[in-house]
């Protein structure tokens, strides 16, 4: 993971899904951070998960298997 790697935000409908997603991300050993949802997405629940965009492909099958739906946005730094 390089410092310059792009960051992506994963947005979920509910805290239930954020926490379910967190458990999966932890079990995969992926580095992540729980951060506030940017205000342009205020309709989602209060927190979302930030990861390196390059980790998305590892996560997607696990999320699909566990019926976790999410929106992905790239963070402009």
């Amino acid at each position, binding site marked *: 993971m390089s410092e310059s790697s792009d960051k992506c935000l994963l947005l979920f*409908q*509910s*805290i*239930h*899904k*954020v*926490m*379910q997603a*967190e458990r999966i991300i932890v079990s995969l050993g992926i580095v992540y951070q*729980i*951060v*506030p*949802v940017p205000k342009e997405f*205020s*309709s*989602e*629940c*209060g*927190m*979302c998960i930030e990861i390196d965009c390059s980790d998305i492909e590892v996560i997607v099958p696990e999320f699909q298997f566990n019926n976790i739906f999410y929106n992905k946005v790239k963070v402009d730094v």
Partner: protein
Amino acid sequence: MGNFYFDNSATSYPKPPEVAEYINEYLKGGGTYGRSAYDRVVAVSRVVENTRLLLANLIGTKHSDHIFFTSNSTHALNLAIKGLSYPKKRILISPLEHNAVTRPVLYLQQTFGVEYDILPHQSDGFIDLDATGKLDLKLYDLCIVNHVSNVNGVIQPLAELKALLRSVPLLVDASQSAGYIPIEADSWNIDMLALTGHKGLMGPTGTGCLFARNPELISPLIHGGTGSRSDSFLMPDFFPDRFEAGTPNVLGIYGLFGALSAKVLPHFDTHTFKDLLEQIEQLKSFKLKRSASFNRQAFLFSVISDNYTPSELSNQLFKRFGIETRSGLHCAPLAHKSLGTFPKGTVRISLSKYHNPNDLNYLYTALKELDYERK
């Protein structure tokens, strides 16, 4: 000194030490559930969601997002009973229901004209499956069953009943069973289940949940903020948020998490319990109200005495022996009518996993002493 608290069906005591530890942790750490993303909130949200998972595991369902926190099983039962619709205007209930079911059911009758029938049963209230199979079950919108009677401890055959009911939804009141006997909501195909955190689960009061396999069939009982979809004036259409308006009882949920993590095993075995029942049965002035079959008996039962009214007996047990029990109707007049103990009721004796064989023996000795004094 022994543990002479035999009113665990009202609320369990003592609680595992983890309950106070987690409550204390929350009081020190604070924070709400969701709505923001600072560390305090994330920590609380983790505990709340882990508790939801533990509850899902406890009742044997994979659908943890279909577990909705409530303040107790009364709240959970009201959510289900008042939130469903009744096109056929007819429901079935078991003969051993608590007022947490019968009062909402009477509300449905008075408000919407929904009638109820009582499931065919044996003299101990155990559902007669053969007779149930002969009913025209297509007539019913819902069937409600108290898994374990809070009066005589009868365990009802949920899987077999649901196999007969087929598409008729089954709502289970697991207030007295959760924490004491296994529940397999998915493999038994249970549609809805209500439980409370402060009895067999040994958590704090003010906690409980409803599980619903098809929650889209239920309207929310309480409307308000969920911290999600805040731009909408309507309740979210996803779960669990649809049924969890308002700040949850985080303090209580922490305590419940402690209770569920504690994994307390019974300090007495079923043989000791069976011996106790058999010994009490030998006492001539007492009559036991319990399941006709020990295989269908949970760790609670009732007694009636030839010498004392239920309240006198309860009083004697407490004043002379320090034994705490509950006398009367136990909020279950229908159950007492079905068992022939209405209106005086019984004295209920309900065990904790923390009771040891000496405690059970002490209880027996006290009853024996009262038996000798018979008129």
